[in-house]
């Protein structure tokens, strides 16, 4: 998936531009592998706690309150939020770049994608940070 491609490029300013883009894509490639490995643990643990160990109907507001009385669970959930969103956002960026061919529509799709993800990231962070047990 979107592995970095090293090839002799053009010269001058365009070469620097291309190199910056290649660096960016190479780091995005590394990020997907590292965040993916961490997410494997975080997401499957989270799913096991909320759907397997406990039935989903037991995970009510009191359940969340009890878990979030421990700040480590808030850190766990926030890490899951941040990594899952950024991993998913980068994956969706690859999908948009592969399938949306028109430059204008690609830019518009990305702007919509980035702004909604950023908004939801702020909203999720707000939920975790400001929660007070009743």
């Amino acid at each position: 998936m979107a592995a970095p491609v090293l090839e002799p490029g053009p010269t001058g300013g365009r070469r620097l531009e291309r190199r910056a883009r290649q660096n960016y894509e190479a780091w995005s490639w590394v990020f997907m592998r590292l965040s993916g490995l961490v997410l494997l643990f975080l997401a499957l643990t989270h799913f096991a706690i909320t759907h397997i160990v406990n039935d989903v109907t037991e995970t009510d507001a009191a359940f969340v309150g009890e878990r979030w009385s421990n700040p480590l669970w808030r850190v766990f959930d926030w890490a899951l939020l941040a990594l899952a969103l950024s991993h998913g956002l980068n994956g969706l960026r690859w999908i948009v770049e592969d399938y949306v061919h028109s430059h204008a529509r690609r830019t518009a799709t990305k702007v919509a994608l980035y702004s909604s993800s950023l908004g939801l990231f702020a909203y999720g962070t707000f939920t975790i940070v400001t929660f007070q047990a009743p």
Partner: protein
Amino acid sequence: MSRSPGTVYRGRSGQWAFVAHRITGFLVFFFLLLHIVDVSLVSRPRLYDQVHQLYGNVVLRLFEVGLLAALVYHSLNGLRIVMIDFFPGSIRNEKRVLSAVVSLTALLTAVGGWIIMKPFVEGRLL
């Protein structure tokens, strides 16, 4: 277009693994967006509990089993991608690893799915 066996990726198992990886990733991402909104209701406990009871409904239980399948496939196939990227020699076993990914996904989804559907099967919940 003529095909030379061994070098053409299109239509082979690797391409289907890739397509399934995209689809499962896409679905999990959109569940995450929904999940951020539903958890945000937790500051209003009574409303949160009402909305949350919906997840015990049989339709949404089936949806949760689907989410489990997507999560497990995306996780295990992700490990397969990491394996191929960091240990290029392992590409020789790529097909066997893919069938292990698919079988393990089916097995874990069946076991987890049984646990998720059990309250419904036993008639405790709608």
